[in-house]
């Protein structure tokens, strides 16, 4: 199982599995598959703040909105190249979206991370709402109508060998999801990453050990905002349409549930719950005929939040990762 920890192998396996599932299915299933990646990046990035650094942010949707809007504006105003040139251009636009979101994250995080717990939650919620209200009211961003006609990925043609639109999008999404996973994963095993963990475990003790806790929190917040911007950029490419109504408080709640359900501080747990959160609404959609057209999604989410906090406060996975169970001989799994 160790080979899965090599990014290229992991990417190939993901593309192989998701690609073969997607090629057999219709475009509806394909879009759900792509959204698995968007939501995974969303969950993993929030996990860095909420799970590993122990700072509770409720405004993740705001940063996703910034990324999505940056991508939409750039790719609707700049001509999008067809053929193989589209991928690097899209890649640069996505990096740009991440950088803008990270920059906003810096300016939001620097003052608000002085606060703790409940207050931080409310302030980040407030910033998320302010971002949404501003997008809604500034004509440049399209107001409440949003921006439509965002170009999607073109087909690639290698002398007769055609790669499908969906596969191109999938390769792009996989690249970012794998980058996000391994970036955060390796970061946490590095010296700054240990700093993040120490802030979560005991802020005062960390400070006594010479760790600049404010710097650690702001760093975690900026990195998390960067990947939120990346998730937003992918969102814009896959839906071809963004509007402020997509980035409400409920999107932040979705991200929080991914982190809490999977376990605050578990990457694979977070991925598992991202899958659950993406697939649940689709399953419930088909059940709607039996529930008289009522959307049970939020009722299930909220009950899950309450019950998990009461029965298993550390989340389903706790701080464990799936591959801890693969190592049979090694009992010390921390």
């Amino acid at each position, binding site marked *: 199982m160790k080979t899965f920890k090599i990014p290229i192998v992991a990417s190939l396996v993901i593309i192989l599995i998701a690609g073969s599932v997607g090629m057999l299915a219709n475009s509806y299933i394909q879009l759900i598959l792509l959204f698995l990646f968007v939501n995974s990046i969303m969950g993993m990035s929030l996990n860095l703040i909420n799970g590993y650094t*122990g700072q*509770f942010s409720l405004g993740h949707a705001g940063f996703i909105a910034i990324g999505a809007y940056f991508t939409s504006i750039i790719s609707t105003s700049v001509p999008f190249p067809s053929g193989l040139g589209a991928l690097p251009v899209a890649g640069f636009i996505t990096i740009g979206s991440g950088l803008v979101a990270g920059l906003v994250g810096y300016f939001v995080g620097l*003052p*608000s991370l*002085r*606060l703790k*717990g*409940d*207050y931080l*939650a*409310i*302030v980040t*919620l*407030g*910033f998320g*709402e*302010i971002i949404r*209200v*501003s997008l*809604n*009211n500034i004509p440049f961003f399209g107001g409440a109508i949003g921006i439509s006609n965002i170009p999607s990925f073109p087909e690639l043609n290698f002398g007769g060998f055609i790669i499908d639109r969906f596969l191109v999008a999938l390769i792009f999404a996989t690249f970012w999801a794998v980058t996000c996973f391994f970036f955060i994963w390796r970061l946490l095993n590095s010296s700054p990453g240990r700093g993040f963990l120490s802030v979560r475990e005991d802020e*005062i003790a960390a400070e006594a050990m010479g760790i600049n806790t404010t710097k650690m929190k702001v760093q975690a917040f900026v990195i998390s905002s960067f990947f939120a911007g990346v998730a937003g950029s992918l969102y814009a490419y896959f839906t071809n349409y963004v509007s402020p109504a997509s980035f409400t*408080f409920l999107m932040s*709640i979705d991200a*929080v549930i991914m982190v*809490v359900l999977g376990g605050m501080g578990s990457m694979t747990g977070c991925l598992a719950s991202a899958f659950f959160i993406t697939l649940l609404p689709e399953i419930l959609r088909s059940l709607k005929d039996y529930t008289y057209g*009522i*959307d049970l999604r*939020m*009722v299930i*989410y*909220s*009950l*899950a*939040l*309450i019950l998990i*906090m*009461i029965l298993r*406060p550390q989340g389903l996975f706790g701080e464990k990762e799936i591959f801890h169970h693969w190592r049979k001989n090694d009992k010390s799994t921390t």
Partner: protein
Amino acid sequence: MEELLQHLINGLSLGSIYSLIALGYTMVYGILQMINFAHSEVYMMGAFFAYYSAKLLKLENSPSFTTLLIILFITMAMCSLLALSIEKFAYRPLRKQPKLNVLITAIGVSLFLQYVAQIIFGADPKVFPTLINDQLLFEVAGVPVKSFDVTILGVSVTAMFALHFLVYHTKLGQAMRAVSHSPAVASILGINVSRTIAFTFVAGSSLAGIGSILVGIKYQKIEPMMGTMIGLKAFVAAVLGGIGSIAGAVVGGLVLGVSEVLVVVYGSSQYRDALAFGILIFILLFKPAGIFGKNTIEKV
């Protein structure tokens, strides 16, 4: 000038509603050091309790003072029951857990009530029954004063005085203050901490019930999502006044109400919701303890 006076009256009646709800936040925070996110949903349920009890008692078309009183008492009782069960089933099992877990549970309870209310009551807005006639009472310096505003101010001031009496002049209030000071010492001295916390929830949610009826009278429209925004604003009011302080919640609510009405009149109505968050961010950055709050030092 007359226009300004009119806006001030409007702002004060809106602000007194914020104060009533903010009191619930501040009391629970004072005793448990947690933000009760579900408070805004207790308020929302209060509006529906009032709506359905007026319907069941066939009082929706007989506006009078007694009608108002009957509905007020029923709603206060129902809201208290709801808050008691939330406290018992969701918050009490987590009392010794880290604050973050309690916060997540509170958000969960809030979402749960919101969406269950949508399923039970339907998502579309309902017209609140007329509990009191809207008529011109008298004029102050050429400004008409309506019975709605007088009722709102009268009821909320009475409720605040009742709360003041409860907290500072009864044994129960003494117990509440003792528990908020130090639960451990209070329980050594023979105070039933759990019961005191439950009573705090009862007092706070009764005020939220009163607030919901006053909002129903003023805006005549109720819906399952009505709690979110007003709850956040009331929370901002509590923080503005200094969370944990009863006088602070009242002052914070009034300041927020008046400034919101002024922003809508002289600025843009689109930013009325952003104003509350702006105030919140400003106050947390420059005076996190609020107007009446005391600075606390964190010890290792």
